[in-house]
């Protein structure tokens, strides 16, 4: 009799334990995760037993986890992580390049430019740093002068692939902004080993391709019907398009009635 009594007590204890844990987890989901504390390079260097490269790699891996983890809403610490990695191991090329390309997406464009310039100052022989810096100047800042400067630097960097050199050489020569930008992103897509960056480049490429395709359809429409369609929905309704194309950035398009260019609704 006593054994059964003791077993029930034990099961109750264990059950309560699981219940408390579950309630705690439920509560934690409501509380937003605080932003992590990112120490400075000096602090880490004092404690890492000289293993600065390994510490830089860990900071880099932490940056990736932070960025891809979805724990943060603002990603405001991403630049801290990247600067930490770059300060711990100054020769570590990728954080500089990755930073300038990805930070604009989390509202840290200036920090991105800062980190790329740091990499160039430190004479890192990696073409990606000036190339991505030029890309950001072109895309985010619409600063053609600086873009041209850094594309040129990228082309001159030893080890730059032929595609990159071509983009740099053609910069400013092509009047069409869209195909210019598309080429820039194509250059990145073809040369990166980074799935994250590849995806970003593909998004831009698809986006431009969709715009071009829509405008071609709109022109054909005008030739047939006499005027440009109002928007994409009209094309779908009239059965010309099976469905609205999935723009990677989620935009919806209407058409400029004067020149048939696709414009964001």
């Amino acid at each position, binding site marked *: 009799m006593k054994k059964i009594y003791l077993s029930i007590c034990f099961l109750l204890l264990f059950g309560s334990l699981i219940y408390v844990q579950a309630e705690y987890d439920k509560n934690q989901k409501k509380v937003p995760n605080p932003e992590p504390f990112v120490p400075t390079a000096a602090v880490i260097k004092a404690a890492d037993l000289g293993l*600065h*490269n*390994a510490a830089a790699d860990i900071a880099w891996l932490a940056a990736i986890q932070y960025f891809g983890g979805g724990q943060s809403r603002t990603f405001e610490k991403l630049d801290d992580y990247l600067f930490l990695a770059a300060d711990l191991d100054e*020769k570590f090329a990728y954080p500089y390049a990755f930073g300038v390309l990805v930070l604009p997406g989390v509202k840290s464009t200036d920090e991105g430019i800062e980190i790329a310039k740091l990499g160039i100052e430190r004479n890192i022989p990696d073409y990606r740093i000036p190339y991505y810096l030029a890309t950001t100047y072109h895309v985010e800042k619409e600063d053609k002068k600086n873009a041209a400067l850094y594309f040129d630097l990228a082309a001159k960097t030893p080890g730059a692939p032929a595609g990159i050199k071509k983009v740099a050489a053609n910069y400013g020569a092509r009047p069409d902004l869209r195909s210019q930008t598309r080429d820039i992103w194509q250059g990145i897509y073809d040369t990166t080993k*980074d*799935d994250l960056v590849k995806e970003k480049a593909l998004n831009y490429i698809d986006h431009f391709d969709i715009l071009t395709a829509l405008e071609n359809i709109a022109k054909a429409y005008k030739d047939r019907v006499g005027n440009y369609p109002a928007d994409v929905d009209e094309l779908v309704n009239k059965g010309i398009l099976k469905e609205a194309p999935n723009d990677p950035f989620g935009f919806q398009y209407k058409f400029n009635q004067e020149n048939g260019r696709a414009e964001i609704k």
Partner: protein
Amino acid sequence: MKNILTIAKNTFRETIRDRILYGILGFAILFLLSTVFFGSISLGEDTKVIKDLGLAGIYIFSLIIAVFLGSQLIHKELEKRTIYIILSKPVSTAQFILGKYLGLLSSLVINIAFMAIIYLAVVKFVGNQIDYLALWAFLLNILELSVFVALTILFSSFTAPLAGTIYAILILYIGHSLELLRKAAEKSGDLVKYLVEALYYLFPNLEKFNIRNFIVYGTPPTVAQIIYPALYSVLLTLILLWLANLCLKKRDL
């Protein structure tokens, strides 16, 4: 000196048969294999990550083994009185200490060799290259360990293993921070500067054994970067073992 080799041989035997050693080594190997995973989530920086983490891991694990084995080495002999049956024979304390040192160091060299083979295999597998430069890093790693073995033998000859371990860890941290301390002291007054300079030369400066941060970028070490640390290691080891001998001789067993 045959006695030194005899004691070394048997110390080597004793440590190499210790099962705890295999536990630590097992963890080290698991860690080395796990660097492949970390490389895979590094967005294309695989080879760099596995090299950096691999070399760092081997360093830390080899230190753990050295300090763990070394801090017990003499102390166990004193506590269990196995030292009695040795020193009552025609064996001097100096021969005893040198023998213990060589035995323990040999055991460590085998461990590092083992870890090095795994490291080289992983790097070949992921990065498709044979990391010859890492061999220099392993050599300097062993030279640094020599200092630590001598240090823990010294501590072990006059204090308990726990205290000895703590002292060794303190020296490890200070030894790697000396350059930073020196730089920080540049802004201070003369007295602080002199104190820090004294500290700089008294404490073992362990950064000179660290070439990991540039060999992964393909830069080979210069001749000076190998010769000077080697000399430093030999001299420091001799000094520490000499002190250990003095401590042991003074003790009543």
